[in-house]
C-alpha cells in the first residue's frame, strides 16, 4: 500500500504558496491536498473578535482561487483545517461564503463539506457538570462563569470529522477548529494505515516546507507505506535532510518526542530518519498509543476591555536613574484619577525597552542604556476611560518632579500626536481545557452540501 499526500504550506493566508509547487505536487496524484488555516499563535484576539488574522479578504480569495481550481480540475480532495484563524462558526461562514463566491465566478460544481466546531455555553456547562472538563497545562479549573463570560468557545476536532465529510462525498472540506495533525491524518486513518506512521507524517508536514531549506511557505509531498514514510519538497530549489525533518518536532512543541492528540499519544523516541537522496528523507519507527478516553481541546477567549497605548522615550540620565520612582508616581496619579472617575477595573502595564522590556522579571541583565523606550498599555471598560487614564499617566510622567531634576520642561519624548491612542477591544484566552467525549464526532456538526457554481 502507498498513499501520497500534499501539504500546501504551514498557514493559509493571503501570501499563499508558489502555484508551480502545487502543480508539481498534483502531478504525483496525491490522495488529498491539506492546508492548515488557523493558529492560536496570533493571540486571543481572533477567537475573541471573530476576525481573520490572515491578510485581506481579497488576498485570501486569490489563494483559494488557485487552490480550488487546481484541486477540482485534478479531482483531488482539498481539506482545510481551522478556517480563518480561529475556526469559530463566524470564521467557517466567512470561508464558506468566499468559496461559494469563487465557485460562481469560476463555474465550479462540487460537494462542500463543512465542519462546525463552536460550542454552546450550555454544552460546555453540561460537560463541566458531568466532570468531563479538565484543565490543560497551567489552566485553572473551568467554571460556568468563565464559560458564560467567553465570547466564543471552540473544540479542536480530530481526524474523524474529515473522514465523516469524505465518507459523505465531500470534494472540498472547510473545517472549523481542528488539530493540525487531523487534516493530514484523516485519509491515512480512513485507508487503514499504521497510526504511528500516519500521525508522525501528519505532524511532520503540518507546516509544509518548514521542514525544508531554504525556509519559507511552500509545498511538501508525503508518501506513506506500511513500513515508513518519506517527505520531499515539490519545489526543486528546496531540500530536506534527516536533521531538518527531525528538528521540526521541536517547533512550537513542549516535548520533541511525545505529542498528545485527541486519539492518543504519538511517541517518536524510537523513530529513525534517513536520507533517501539530497531532497528526500525516510522516517520509520514511530509509535502511537491509543488513549483510553477520546479528548478534544477546548479554547475560549473573553473580552477584557478596551485597549489603548502610548509610547515614550527617555534620554535624560537622571530621569533614567530614577525611572521606577517616576513610573510609580505616574501610576499612583492614574489610580487616583480612576477613583475620581469611578473606574474600579483597569490594567496599566509599562514596558521599559532598553532595560527589561522584553524579559521583565526574568531579565538576567537589567542594565539601562543611555536611553530607554516606554510602551504603556492600558485596558479599561471603554475607550473614553482608557483615554482618560493614559492622559493622566503620560502627563504625570512628563511633568513629575524628582530629586536632582534638571529636565523641568518635560521628562519624556513622545513620538506621536496625540501621545496616546485607542487600539481595539482587548481579549484574553479564558479557556484552555480538555473535554472528554464518547464519540469523536459528538462536539462537532458535519454537513455536506452541493455547491453549484455553474448553475
Amino acid at each position, binding site marked *: 500500500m502507498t498513499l501520497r499526500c500534499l501539504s500546501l504550506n504551514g498557514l493559509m493566508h493571503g501570501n499563499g504558496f508558489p502555484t508551480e509547487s502545487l502543480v508539481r505536487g498534483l502531478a504525483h496524484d496525491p490522495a488529498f491536498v491539506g492546508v492548515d488555516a488557523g493558529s*492560536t*499563535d*496570533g*493571540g*486571543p*484576539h481572533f477567537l475573541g473578535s471573530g476576525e481573520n488574522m490572515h491578510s485581506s479578504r481579497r488576498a485570501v480569495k486569490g489563494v483559494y482561487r488557485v487552490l480550488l481550481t487546481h484541486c477540482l480540475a485534478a479531482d483531488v480532495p482539498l481539506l482545510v483545517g481551522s478556517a480563518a484563524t480561529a475556526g469559530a462558526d463566524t470564521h467557517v461562514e466567512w470561508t464558506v461564503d468566499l468559496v461559494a463566491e469563487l465557485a460562481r465566478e469560476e463555474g465550479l460544481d462540487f460537494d462542500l463539506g463543512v465542519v462546525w466546531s463552536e460550542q454552546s455555553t450550555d454544552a460546555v456547562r453540561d460537560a463541566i457538570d458531568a466532570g468531563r472538563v479538565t484543565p*490543560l*497545562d*497551567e*489552566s485553572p479549573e473551568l467554571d460556568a462563569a468563565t464559560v458564560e463570560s467567553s465570547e466564543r468557545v471552540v473544540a479542536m476536532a480530530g481526524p474523524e470529522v474529515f473522514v465523516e465529510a469524505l465518507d459523505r462525498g465531500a470534494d472540498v472540506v472547510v473545517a472549523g477548529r481542528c488539530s493540525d495533525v487531523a487534516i493530514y491524518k484523516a485519509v491515512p486513518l480512513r485507508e487503514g494505515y499504521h497510526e504511528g506512521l500516519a500521525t508522525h507524517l501528519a505532524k511532520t508536514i503540518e507546516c509544509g516546507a518548514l521542514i525544508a531549506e531554504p525556509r519559507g511557505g511552500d509545498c511538501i509531498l508525503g508518501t506513506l507505506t506500511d513500513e515508513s514514510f518519506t517527505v520531499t519538497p515539490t519545489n526543486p530549489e528546496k531540500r530536506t535532510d*534527516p*536533521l531538518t525533518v*527531525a*528538528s521540526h*518536532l*521541536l*517547533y*512550537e*512543541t*513542549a*516535548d*520533541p*518526542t511525545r505529542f498528545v492528540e485527541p486519539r492518543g499519544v504519538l511517541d517518536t523516541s524510537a*523513530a*529513525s*530518519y534517513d536520507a533517501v537522496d539530497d531532497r528526500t528523507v525516510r522516517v520509520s519507527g514511530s509509535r502511537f498509543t491509543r488513549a483510553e478516553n477520546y479528548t478534544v481541546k477546548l479554547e475560549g477567549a473573553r473580552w*477584557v*476591555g478596551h*485597549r489603548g497605548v502610548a509610547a515614550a522615550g527617555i534620554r535624560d540620565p537622571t530621569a533614567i536613574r530614577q525611572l521606577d520612582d517616576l513610573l510609580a508616581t505616574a501610576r499612583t496619579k492614574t489610580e487616583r484619577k480612576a477613583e475620581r472617575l469611578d473606574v474600579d477595573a483597569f*490594567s496599566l*502595564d509599562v*514596558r521599559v525597552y532598553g532595560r527589561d*522590556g*522584553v*524579559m*521583565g*522579571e*526574568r*531579565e*538576567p541583565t537589567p542594565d539601562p542604556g543611555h536611553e530607554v523606550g516606554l510602551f504603556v*498599555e492600558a*485596558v479599561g471598560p471603554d475607550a473614553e476611560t482608557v483615554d482618560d487614564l493614559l492622559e493622566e499617566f503620560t502627563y504625570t510622567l512628563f511633568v513629575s518632579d524628582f530629586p536632582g531634576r534638571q529636565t523641568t520642561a518635560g521628562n519624556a519624548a513622545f513620538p506621536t500626536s496625540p501621545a496616546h491612542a485607542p487600539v481595539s477591544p*482587548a*481579549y*484574553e*484566552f479564558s479557556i*484552555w481545557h480538555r473535554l472528554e467525549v464518547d464519540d469523536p464526532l459528538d462536539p462537532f456538526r458535519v454537513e455536506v452540501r452541493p455547491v453549484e457554481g455553474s448553475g
Partner: protein
Amino acid sequence: MRLGDLADVVRSKNAGVHYVTVDVLFHDYATFEAVRDAEVLSAATVADRYGLPVEDVRFFVYEPGLAFKATFPREHVAGGPGDPDLYGAQQHAPLLAVEVPVDTADP
C-alpha cells in the same frame, strides 16, 4: 565559548498559551556532543538564567535534531494584557551567554 557562538539556532516560541519553549540546535554532531558532554546546559542552567525554580523547567536532549530544548511556564498567558511577547519569540536571549567549556566551535 558562549553558547550563542557555538549553536546554529537559538530560538524561542510559544508551546501553547501557557508555556514558552527554547530550542538550541547544532548542525554538526561533534559540537552537539561537546556541548552535551560539557554538562553546563541543563534544567538548572535554564532555571538560573531565567530566575525560575528548577522544577518549573522541563529539559530535553534531542539527539535526532542535534538539539537541546527547555520548556517552562510563561509569565503571562499568551497575548493577554501585560504579556510583552505575544509569540514568545524573544525569550531565548539569556541562554546565548551561557559559557561552555570548549575551545572552538569545531572541536
